[in-house]
């Protein structure tokens, strides 16, 4: 039996050794913030304490298993109680735990110190994307996965940052204390970036406060950390830390965005834009084929909405269906994008024929969307 154990241990070591050679991550990242560094140190302290206790306990255990075998003529002793030793192995672990609790308490106090921040970003979790609002700069945008469905379904090779890439990363300046106000719009999500040493639940109705202080420029990636429905795996977080000047530039170029033009668009233009935006915003649920994933995500091919009256279609997309993953897109996408997506869905997968047969329009212009917005407000 010992041989089996030894062989198994050697096997495990080989396994681990080969994977380390392959530069596969094995441990918690040290990260790039003071907190992530402290957390890493605490994690390693806990790990080493466990190792020492483990070596002692398993050492005695393995020694006994080898030494006191009946097959080797071991005779059982008769002791079965010893008050002194019970007190010892109650006290010593207790003291070790106190030793671990002290640094943990100090780090925790640091984490909770959210004062003196230079920048505040509100982070809102949605099924299945993140919204970032720079409260003092007046910048507001959504951040959505850009990995294509074809990569997920194996029809295309996967990129280096498969499932960890977004259209609009959250941009922060380095060496600045950034306050994060984290909440959610629908179900509970969790904003987690291992390199920044932060995981904070995003809970509808709550605003949780946390902060980051990134010391090195770079791109840091994480994922949603709380089960939030079918596409929980597909709402990554990307944080881009840049020098202060570059950040200032970024603020200027993103603040003064021209208002969305409501001028009519060509049909081909609508369809081209609609296809890309559909694949980014809709395809994760309704699929590129328009077949959806019933029963959770209904098909758009031949659906009552995409082949029904056009006004109903537009306001359906604007208001969504409460209590489901079909969101109110009024706040998320602009008129041009919405017009393009709706045009695309009304013409794809054979929907155009049905619409033509029933004399339903197959082209929606930005102005139509804007009018629907206004009448919804009333």
């Amino acid at each position, binding site marked *: 039996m010992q041989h089996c154990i030894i062989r198994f241990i050697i096997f495990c070591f080989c396994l681990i050794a080969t994977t380390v050679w392959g530069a596969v991550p094995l441990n918690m990242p040290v990260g790039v913030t003071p907190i992530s560094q402290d957390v890493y140190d605490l994690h390693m302290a806990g790990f080493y304490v466990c190792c020492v206790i483990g070596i002692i306990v398993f050492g005695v255990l393995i020694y006994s298993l080898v030494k006191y075998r009946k097959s080797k003529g*071991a005779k059982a002793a008769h002791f079965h109680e010893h008050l002194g030793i019970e007190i010892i192995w109650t006290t010593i*672990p207790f003291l070790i735990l106190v030793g671990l609790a002290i640094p943990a308490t100090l780090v925790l106090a640091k984490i909770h110190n959210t004062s003196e921040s230079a920048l505040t970003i509100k982070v809102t979790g949605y099924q299945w994307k993140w919204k970032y609002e720079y409260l003092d700069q007046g910048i507001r945008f959504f951040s959505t996965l850009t990995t294509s469905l074809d990569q997920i379904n194996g029809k295309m090779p996967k990129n*280096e940052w498969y499932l960890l890439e977004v259209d609009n990363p959250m941009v922060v300046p380095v060496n600045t204390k950034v306050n994060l106000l984290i909440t959610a719009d629908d179900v509970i999500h969790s904003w987690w970036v291992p390199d920044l040493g932060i*995981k904070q639940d995003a809970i509808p109705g709550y605003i949780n406060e946390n902060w980051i202080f990134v010391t090195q420029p770079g791109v840091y990636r*994480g994922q949603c950390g*709380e089960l939030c429905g079918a596409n929980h795996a597909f709402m990554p977080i990307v944080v881009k830390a840049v020098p202060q000047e570059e950040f200032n530039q970024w603020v200027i170029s993103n603040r003064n965005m021209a208002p969305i033009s409501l001028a009519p668009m060509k049909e081909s233009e609508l369809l081209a834009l609609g296809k890309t935006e559909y694949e980014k915003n809709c395809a994760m649920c309704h699929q590129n084929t328009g077949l959806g994933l019933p029963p959770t995500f209904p098909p758009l091919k031949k659906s009552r909405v995409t082949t029904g009256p056009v006004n109903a279609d537009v306001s359906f997309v604007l208001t969504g269906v409460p209590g489901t993953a079909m969101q109110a897109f009024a706040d998320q996408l602009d008129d041009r994008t919405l017009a393009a997506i709706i045009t695309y869905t009304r013409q794809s997968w054979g929907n155009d024929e049905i619409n033509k047969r029933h004399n339903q329009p197959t082209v929606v212009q930005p102005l139509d969307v804007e009018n629907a917005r206004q009448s919804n407000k009333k």
Partner: protein
Amino acid sequence: MSETLAHQHEAHDDHHHGPEHGIKRWLFTTNHKDIGTLYLFFSFIMLFIGGAMALIIRVELFEPGRVIINPEFFNQMTTMHGLIMVFGVIMPAMAGLANWLIPMMIGAPDMALPRLNNWSFWLLPFAFALLFSTMFMSGPGLAFGWTFYAPLSTTYGPPSTDFFIFSIHMMGASSIMAALNIVVTIFNMRAPGMTWFKLPMFVWSWLVTGFLLLAVMPVLAGCVTMMLMDRHFHTSFFSAAGGGDPLLFQHVFWFFGHPEVYILILPGFGVISDIIPTFSRKPLFGYRFMVYATIIIAILGFIVWMHHMFTTGAPIAAQLYFMYATMLIAVPTGIKVFNWVATIYKGSLTFETPMLFALGFLFMFTIGGFSGLMLGLVPADYQYRDSYFVVAHFHYVLVSGSLFAIIAAVYFWLPKWTGHMYSETIGQIHFWLSVIGMNLTFFPMHFIGLAGMPRRIPDYPLQFTDFNQIATVGSFIFGIAQLFFLYIILKSCFTKSKQHLPDKVWEGAHGLEWTIPTPAPYHTFETAPIIK
């Protein structure tokens, strides 16, 4: 009180009937051994169903990208796998062991409330039929994880959630009745002279577990009832939009959920405390401290629930208190491990299959305890929470902890139950394959968790591929290993030619159950033994 109950039972059993024949025996039985068998078989079937779901999960995670199932179905699999393993495998198996063993260990003729006993078992197949039915409903099945956090399970829950709520109610009623029965039996049915500090550790552990169940199963029932109210009766317990609080759900759930993990493991502690002394041929070291440690673990188990919620934005004072209380549990748990090691120390050891599984428990449960201790450190928990590190942790305490304890118990008492000694070779193969499969599956999860892989995702970034593939291979080894167990159980239960085994099947065994004939007759201890 105990005397009147005992007398009633003697009168009832006067006519010395054997079991009825056919299906009626199992439907109407009030015999603790029959009901124990039913529980154990039920649990065994559920183990294979829940295990098959785990394998589907592991196949999907074999490589990045869509492998066989879509994300929605993946979430259904993780949800059902968790619910089945917790409520359908570990809890019924522990209840089955309690039914078989507690009367035989305390010298009682049967459980105190035999008809209630029948009912508490027969609720389970219906509860699980209801639970499984949700997978075939036209609305989507349950996909919110076994923790069913609101609002994912309330506002956003599919219509099938209502069936799930009712199913949880039935499981809860079943557990409460089983616990009530066990507590009443231990209090009232002990043979003369069986004083508290002569009780086997298994009985002690179940007594404490019984109280835990009685205290927290109603909380779970309250939790799902509030969900039902929110879903259909316009209350807003868990909805911020109506003035309620989504975090209230987590508080209520984990007030049940944390004691629940001790419900799953304490009877296992009891099993291990009975098996290790047997094969060490040496009495359990520090019996009284083991009893005290069990009680202290149970009490502390009630006041640490918020350590499941460290990242929810709890105030620092709450985090500190729950961190300290959580770390404190390591002390009585440590006492248990140290006492087991001290029992082995200077014993006269043999390594039959039950002992192997008990030793597997001792090694790997301790590893699970270490990761548990690390999880208690709040700042580090920010990184561990909801990652595969947590998945590794709770599988180390539940698979190599609770499940290994159950398997050890089955090997240990199977000869007494069936009169048939299992094949030691197959038992050993089962053990080694299980250990290898278990560690290949769950040990790499520590690494990918630390590296940042969230749990409950059907698809993952490329850097996690290697360890996921190892885990998938390991899970199949573990799954195949259980087929050897299936063979052993079926062979033992259905072999016609019985061997002649001594009353005391194991050389070093102690306890009343080893004083009755092997296999155990249908009725035992109709006259109470006198314990000196």
